[in-house]
């Protein structure tokens, strides 16, 4: 009997937790479908009286959020692609290639992880200003192209590549670049998917740096555009919720689809080390 009570209690707690976690997200979706004014009704409504897509239409026609959406998608894709190449090359080299100072450089990189990104922001902005990269897509991208975390992730994975496989390729006369391209990338594919998911989501969700570096509203990423709309359209709750759904939905879908890889990345970075 006691065990039965435990099971009931446990599931009650799980369900209660899930409800608390989901309510803000479900309300966001529900409110985005409500006719204008309904989300601010007193007492509050949980569901729309009649679902409407007018706010989503307004986002794309009146507010030009489609542009911000494309900016975000394009930037996140480009950063992901470059970061994959740059970090996987470095990660592989730190794991398997010998060069002077390898361990020391790697430890230095790990040490740099405790420096908050904000410390670099002011001079980075001034530097990009000199390079005429402020208020450009490239300016948004540069800080995310190479990451210590990405290098670390690939290195830990690449350590498990057997030396014999690489040596066999070398004996066959393959150059280092060829080995990397046709062997290492293939063997590291699982962790590269993880890295890609992390980088894409990180770039998509990033707020402070794009806010700093972008001045032209036509270049805004979704979070920056949304934050700026949230200032102007405080009263249009339903419209803002539609904007929030548009911002959150792609990353949530990406996560649900690829969560195995995403979780694997946290484990690799956090626990196994």
């Amino acid at each position, binding site marked *: 009997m006691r065990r039965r009570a435990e099971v009931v209690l446990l599931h009650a707690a799980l369900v209660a937790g899930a409800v608390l976690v989901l309510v803000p997200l479900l309300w966001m979706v529900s409110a985005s479908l409500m006719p204008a004014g309904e989300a601010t009704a007193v007492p509050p409504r949980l569901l729309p009286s009649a679902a409407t897509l007018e706010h989503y239409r307004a986002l794309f026609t009146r507010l030009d959020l489609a542009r911000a959406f494309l900016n975000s998608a394009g930037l996140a894709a480009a950063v992901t692609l470059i970061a994959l190449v740059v970090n996987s090359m470095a990660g592989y*080299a730190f794991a398997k290639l010998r060069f002077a100072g390898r361990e020391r450089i790697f430890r230095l990189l790990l040490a740099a992880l405790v420096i908050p990104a904000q410390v670099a922001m002011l001079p980075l902005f001034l530097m990009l200003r000199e390079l005429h990269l402020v208020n450009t897509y490239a300016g948004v991208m540069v800080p995310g192209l190479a990451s210590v975390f990405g290098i670390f992730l690939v290195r830990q994975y690449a350590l498990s590549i057997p030396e014999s496989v690489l040596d066999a390729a070398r004996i066959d006369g393959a150059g280092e670049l060829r080995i990397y391209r046709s062997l290492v990338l293939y063997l590291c594919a699982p962790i590269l998917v993880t890295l890609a998911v992390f980088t894409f989501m990180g770039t998509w969700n990033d707020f402070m740096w794009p806010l700093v570096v972008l001045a032209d509203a036509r270049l805004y990423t979704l979070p920056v555009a949304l934050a700026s709309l949230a200032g102007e359209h405080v009263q249009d709750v339903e419209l803002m919720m539609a904007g929030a759904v548009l911002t959150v939905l792609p990353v949530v879908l990406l996560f649900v689809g690829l969560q195995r890889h995403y979780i694997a990345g946290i484990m690799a970075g956090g626990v196994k080390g």
Partner: protein
Amino acid sequence: MTRRRRIDPALCFVAPALGLIGVFFLVPVVASLVLSFTDFDIYAIADARHLRLVGADNYATLLRDPRFCTALRNTLYFVLVGGPLSVAVSLGAALLVSARLARFRGFFRTVFFLPVVTTLVAVAVVWRYLYHPRFGLLNRGLALLGLGPIDWLGDPAWAMPAIILLAVWKNFGFNMIIFVAGLENVPERLYEAARIDGAGAWQQFRHVTLPMLAPTFVFVGVVTMIGYFQLFAEPYVMTQGGPADSTLSVVLLMYEEGFRWWNMGHGAAIAFVLFAIILACTALQLRLRGLKLGEREVATAPVGRRGAEEAGA
């Protein structure tokens, strides 16, 4: 002595990454330190000849600046209350989703993790409405319990708790996953031995689970603290630091000083004070736990530990 002419191919592999990190991160960090000893402002942006070295003036001004002290106090409030709360909720959730009696564990794990991947700005916009004193769902829920209403974001006493609540909701899933992994590493035989000794559920938790999770706590504690010190988007979107500066954070102040008023020297000093505090707190946490733990266990969380030793001690 013969030197090979050919460049080591390994260097070609690391050069792009190291170059990017060096140019766009390490150089700016050093430049930031230099900047913090200058009076770099909007005139210096126009013409660098206006730039003067002012020694530690920026730092001295900060200590006398009541807004900086407020920002520091608010940030410490957020870190010291929000951090432990966040970790506690994560551990609770981890225990629930790893309970052997629980069904649909994968489903609940995914649900609890969902807020982590959402865009902070978007959920901050959503929560701003949830916190609305009149039509917000939160006050509605409190009213059902006979409580409230609370003017969450309009009352200086409640604004920071409101931001902490959002942060806990948004972040607990991340640490939960790390705790779940830590729990899986606890050998089953330890629980068996404890049960044979007559330990109940609470005693098993207290004397087996918690000690075995010690290395996980170090990692989670350090990572959460570093992240929480960088509070920015929540107050930027929800309160703009108000009401009455009650949610003004250090990073928000740095942003305003540096990028709104272009007092870059001043902003850089703020950034460095924050960095120094993060470093000190990281070292302190590791020292406190390290002494208790012993080397082997701590070594399971090498990122934080090595990082701090290298940069700090």
